[in-house]
């Protein structure tokens, strides 16, 4: 019981030098991408990074921004740990990065928003702008809205509203069963669905509304399938993702349940790989996205086709979140519009900025920095022109358009009271 072992303290601290490596002064505009590149869902982080790098290359090959400066993507690993996100944010600040992007895990996004709220107030000269590409918690553009945050994905309320709109239009839906994960996101999905179904699908009866313990704790979904059968539901609506979606779909397929599943995350590569294309088609998985490869709109414009083919060639993957492109392309537009890489000016330039995507105009609403764009609801099918490709392997299934929901239909009021510097 001596305390002398602490002498080792010093030895261990020597390599600390690594931590304070000073960033090289290069004339690039850097976007720090804070995502999980290790840990349980590193694949998602890596796919995101690949997307960012591809579109940055695309912009750079066409002359970059501000008359010749290149966009550089700096990966910062948060290992799916919210605290580490904060740490990496500090590292980004140390390294002189003024723009960060993140999207996987809304708890991480929340940390960034809160952190920047304090940091940008305390250090206005080192302000940072957050480009949120996929974190969908509605409050980020409502009560938590910030001038330093721009969201490119539709929030939960918008997505649920879009699904409710389509469910209301779909004559085959009369009895709906809802199953969600019992945590902040799942509960938000549930209450949004209760609201929007009432408004937009008044003729649909909600015959079941369940919550489950999230994150792979439920192993056997058969009892839920039996309840769905017993309720007489003809359609299922679920916000589930990960194993909670995979096992749900597998159990439905194994029990011969043939009620379509309206989902948000049914089209993620990990979802399709998890339940397999065959089960997905058997059940009738539907998803809501900003675009998919088999839509008629998508293949009309040579520019988009070129961009997309280049992506598939580059990554061996089908396009499944086109908005990663918007983030980079619109960022370039905003920087050029602002004429500077000062975050405050770029943030201001984003307000009202419009980009003409293949599905229609993408506009950043000035009041809350929320992107608005049309969304498409599609069904999984094995009879498609372009089956889904992931790492050069085809899943043998792809998506077919059911219907589009316009940007106007998705526009919801905001409670945002934005404080501009």
């Amino acid at each position, binding site marked *: *019981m*001596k*305390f*002398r*072992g*602490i*002498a*080792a*303290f*010093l030895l*261990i*601290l020597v*390599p*600390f030098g690594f*931590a*304070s490596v000073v960033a090289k002064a290069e004339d690039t505009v850097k976007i720090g991408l804070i995502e999980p*590149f*290790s*840990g349980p869902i*590193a*694949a998602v982080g*890596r796919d995101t990074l*690949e997307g960012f790098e591809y579109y940055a290359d695309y912009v750079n090959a066409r002359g970059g921004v501000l008359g010749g400066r290149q966009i550089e993507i700096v990966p910062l*690993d948060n*290992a799916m*740990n*919210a*605290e*580490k996100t*904060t*740490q990496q944010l*500090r*590292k980004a*600040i*140390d390294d002189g990065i003024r723009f960060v992007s993140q999207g996987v*895990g*809304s*708890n991480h996004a*929340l*940390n960034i928003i*809160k952190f920047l709220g*304090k940091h940008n107030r*305390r250090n206005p000269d080192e302000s940072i702008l957050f480009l949120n590409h996929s974190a969908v*918690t509605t409050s980020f553009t409502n009560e938590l809205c910030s001038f330093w945050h721009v969201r490119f994905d539709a929030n939960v309320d918008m997505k649920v509203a879009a699904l409710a709109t389509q469910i209301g239009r779909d004559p085959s839906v009369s009895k709906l069963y809802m199953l969600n994960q*019992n*945590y*902040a*996101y799942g*509960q938000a999905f549930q209450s949004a669905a209760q609201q929007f179904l009432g408004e937009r699908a008044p003729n649909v009866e909600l015959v079941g509304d369940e919550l489950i*313990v*999230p*994150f792979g*704790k439920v192993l056997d979904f058969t009892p839920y399938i039996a309840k769905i059968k017993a309720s007489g539901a003809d359609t299922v609506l679920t916000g589930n993702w990960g194993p909670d979606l995979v096992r749900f779909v597998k159990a439905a397929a194994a029990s011969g349940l043939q009620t379509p599943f309206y989902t948000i995350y049914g089209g993620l590569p990990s979802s399709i790989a998890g339940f397999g294309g065959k089960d997905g088609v058997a059940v009738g998985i539907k998803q809501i996205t900003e675009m998919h490869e088999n839509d008629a709109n998508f293949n009309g414009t040579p520019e988009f086709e070129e961009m997309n083919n280049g992506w598939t060639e*580059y*990554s*061996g*993957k089908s396009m499944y979140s086109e908005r990663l492109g918007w983030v980079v392309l619109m960022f370039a537009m905003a920087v050029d519009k602002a004429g500077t890489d000062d975050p405050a000016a770029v943030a201001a330039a984003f307000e009202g900025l419009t980009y003409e995507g293949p599905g229609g105009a993408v506009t950043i609403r000035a009041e809350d920095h929320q992107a608005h764009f049309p969304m498409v609801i599609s069904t999984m099918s094995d009879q498609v022109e372009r089956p889904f490709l992931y*790492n*050069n*392997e085809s899943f043998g299934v792809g998506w077919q358009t059911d219907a589009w929901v316009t940007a106007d239909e998705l526009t919801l009021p905001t409670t945002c009271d934005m404080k501009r510097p």
Partner: protein
Amino acid sequence: MTAPGTFVARYGIWIFGAVLLLIMPHVFTSSFALNLMSQMGVLIIFSLAYNMLLGQGGMLSFGHAIYFGLAGYFTIHYLNFVYDDIAPYIPVSLFPLLGGCVGLFFGTLVGYVSTRRAGTTFAMISLGFGEMVTALTLILVAIFNGEDGIQTDRVVGPEPLGISYGPNIEVYYLIAVWVLVAAAAMYALTKTPFGRMSNAVRDNPERTEFIGYNSQRIRWLAFALSSFFAGLAGSLHAINFEHVGFEQVSALTSGLVLFMAYIGGVGHFAGPVIGAVLITFLNGTLTTYTEAWQLYLGVLFVAVIMFFPGGLAGLIIMHQPIWRIDTRLLAPLTVPYLLFIGALLVSLIGFIGLVELLIYKTSRLGAAHDLTIFGITMDPSGVVPWISFAIVMAVGVYAIRKAFPVAAGAWNTAIDQARARAAQ
């Protein structure tokens, strides 16, 4: 412990530690480094607290993050209550005490049932409680706010002595002070009747019953006190990040603190300190260089269990009898040790090379980029890098097998010499 220690011998290491804590932020000034060091401080307290169970009391817990995390939640809520004028103001500096009490409360409660058994039963109960509390933090959104966790602003109330705890450096020094206080307190605990009996229960719980002690009561006390310090650390963690989420109570954090304590060395008071500093450092920096750091961490953990169960502290302490007699006896160890370390490095280079190649192959199937390992850029699709690293690793493993007996022999010789000298 009757050795007549002079002031320096007795308190030197503590003064050294205090000075180190004082000057570190002036050596590593970046915001990232400061944050990392603050986190190290928090985890030093947590892993020392954990070692009160594992190392001192012989209780392997898979769920000690509960007390760390719940104290964190309490701290954040309380700060927010102070903001909303619901709760009376308490100086932020004293929050760790409050967090400690929260840990103590839950530790006392859960400890009462879980410490009735030791060994694997205790480990299983801790696992069960851990799973239940993690599930609850997700379900009870009003209290824990699910995956998002809860946020606060630590700058609240008056600013005694001009300390607002806005700047990170002030939080760092707050943590540093608490590290010293908590470490000293936990060190002192090992010297008390309770501390001694805790060791006794670890070594031989049955015998303690026959010298008048209720071994369950000792385990319970150890558990509760350990939870107090875990709560103290959790509270500091919450103040540091101004956020707490379900990760802090989850099996992930419980596993991390187990890794820290064990890799550092559970048999020695300073072991968890070494472990916390090393693992936090690796955790914070390795991710920049490799995606496989979690694998390396796991391999390190397994290697420690298999080859040096005393941990890093154990490796240092096994030389203590030698340097106590005469530090010059350590000199002949240099060459054999360097040989062994060299062999280890060679095999590590081979191993890391293979791992990185494999990761590259599975994670980047689509795009064909070049891969840079150890500053060498190579084409990972070819067979040459694979064979090269395999050969390097094989050579390294062979060299280890040759060098280990030499190093072990040198240590044996040195310790024999030291013993012979001591006997004179």
